[in-house]
């Protein structure tokens, strides 16, 4: 049975204009998240992962512009919505956990206030109720309730990320967007945070969009994975399919760059070159200058997304026709 679509991003294009250049961050992103599903969005820094997430909340920075596309949430168009229409969605239906816990909490407000503000805004709680609920939420993420009146500076990075998660789940959202929630943390703390997210996702049956460049996290937490390169999704499918039968040379490269303890692989293979410059994108397939199996066609034409099977899609000329 086809699961209900929760979020559907179609042909999303975003550009940022600065004094020096125009950078094309998103160049036609197509992405669907179904209810209860957890999707991993993976790619190098600068691929447009965070911009995709912020676009969903309609919060890209002032110099950014949505040039095309649509974002449907439960069938409702979010693109171009007025602030008034977005408010009941942000932090309530769709909430976001940010990358750097050291900078994503306001230093001059207590953690209780920063969790409580969501509850007051969306659930109509008063100051006292919100504080009581904030204590419970802190306990849920493994922080003692008495610390509710402490300031972010009194917490370690991992603890601050727990606060961010507590605020993220405060209204029991339908979709939780986690933007590299563990990148800024120590490895041991990373594991704790992932364990916590895994537990909460099960408990709250929330859909999850996990943004990361860590493939291990994807295989740990997600059912589906989308690989992003230069503002486009270039491969999409179940984690099982994509990780075991990568089709796109970029995905192959990413997996090849992953150290493994139990394989007999003696050397890591790095993808040559650097990620495409968003203000000077190559023609044709954005990946062609770095691609080992680049053809003449790849330099001129943007490949279309082709379906390999029910659980696997790829955007590469090498797989046109759907054959493996």
């Amino acid at each position, binding site marked *: 049975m086809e699961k209900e679509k929760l979020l559907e991003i179609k042909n999303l294009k975003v550009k940022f204009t600065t004094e020096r250049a125009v950078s094309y961050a998103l160049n036609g992103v197509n992405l669907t998240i179904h209810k209860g599903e957890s999707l991993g969005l993976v790619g190098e820094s600068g691929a447009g992962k965070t911009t995709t997430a*912020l676009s969903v*909340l309609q*919060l890209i920075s002032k110099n950014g512009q949505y040039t095309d596309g649509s974002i449907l949430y439960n069938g409702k168009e979010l693109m171009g919505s007025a*602030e008034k229409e*977005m*408010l*009941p*969605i*942000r*932090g*309530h239906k769709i*909430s*976001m956990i*940010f*990358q*750097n816990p050291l*900078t*994503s*909490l*306001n*230093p*001059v*407000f207590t953690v209780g206030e*920063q969790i409580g*503000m*969501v509850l007051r*805004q*969306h659930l109509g709680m008063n100051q006292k109720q919100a504080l009581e609920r904030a204590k419970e939420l802190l306990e849920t993420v493994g922080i003692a309730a008495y610390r509710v009146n402490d*300031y972010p*500076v*009194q917490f370690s990075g991992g603890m601050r990320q727990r606060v*961010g998660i507590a*605020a993220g789940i405060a209204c029991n959202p339908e979709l939780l967007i986690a933007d590299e929630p563990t990148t800024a943390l120590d490895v041991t703390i990373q594991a704790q945070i992932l364990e916590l997210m895994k537990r909460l996702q099960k408990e709250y049956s929330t859909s999850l969009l996990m943004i990361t460049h860590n493939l291990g996290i994807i295989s740990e937490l997600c059912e589906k994975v989308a690989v992003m390169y230069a503002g486009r999704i270039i491969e999409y499918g179940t984690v099982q399919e994509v990780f075991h039968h990568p089709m796109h040379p970029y995905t192959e490269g990413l997996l090849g760059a992953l150290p493994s303890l139990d394989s007999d692989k003696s050397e890591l293979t790095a993808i040559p070159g650097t990620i495409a410059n968003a203000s000077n994108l190559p023609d044709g397939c954005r990946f062609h200058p770095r691609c080992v199996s680049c053809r003449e066609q790849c330099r001129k034409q943007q490949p279309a997304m082709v379906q390999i099977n029910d659980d696997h899609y790829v955007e590469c000329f090498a797989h046109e026709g759907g054959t493996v």
Partner: protein
Amino acid sequence: MFWKFVLRRIGQTVIVLICVSIIAFLLIHIAPGDPARIVLGDSATDEMVEAYREKLGLDQPLYVQYFKYIGGIFKGDLGTSTSYQQPVAKIIFSRFPNTILLTLATVLISLVISIPLGIIAGVHQGKAIDFFAMLFAILGQSMSTVWLGVLNIYIFAVKLKLLPTIGTGGLEYLILPAITLGYPISAQVTRLGRSGMIDVLREDYITATLAKGIPSSKVYTKYAFKNALIPIITIVGMQLGVFLGGAVVVETIFSWSGIGQLTNQAVGNRDYAMVQSLLLVIAAAMAIINLLVDIINAKIDPRITLQ
């Protein structure tokens, strides 16, 4: 943590006040010439000067004189003004309410305009309103107080006849000096507020707050502004200290009989006891305001006491 910080700052303030009292005390001895001779003038005989020295206690060792001086301060005795022939304390305390009134009016007028203007300009960086706010600020910071004071009198009192020119009195007398003093402060606070807001709005935690579904107007005025407030409080506090010490130029231009005008006259009249005590009062006002500013900032930003 917080109270420990407050106690430490109070301790520091007491030390500063002791140092100031020593300097104020020594002032009379540093000044060229014999204080008694200066007071009595050239026509006085040596016997008269000697008698006066004894009367003032100037023949005693310095430390004895200092402790007598400090003892006097605690009894409210700041000496006798030579130009007024009255106790210094009485004159200063009769003038002080005027200075406090002018200071409060100035701060009120300047903040009412500059804080909203700074926030709006910062939020709408590069827009027309930002341009006008910056024009307002640059004008305010470029004009000298003397020129602005005279200009205000010319426009509002002489030409439009809306307000009295000079003098000390009710609200109508307060407006022009307060605007003259307040405009440069207003300009500075507008700029600080604007740049503070621009910096804060770039922070991740502001995006995170917006992502929680908090209306942007509330995010700007509550969650972002509190971060931009610290430099503003510091600057306003410093100015407040300066004004409490008397705005010499403005009080003189507008004949506002406060501490500033008194200082100007006392220096002109070589009224040593008066200058000495004014120095003490001004320094004390400054030190206490600084103390309050630090306590308020520590209350706003927990990082000050916690880190």
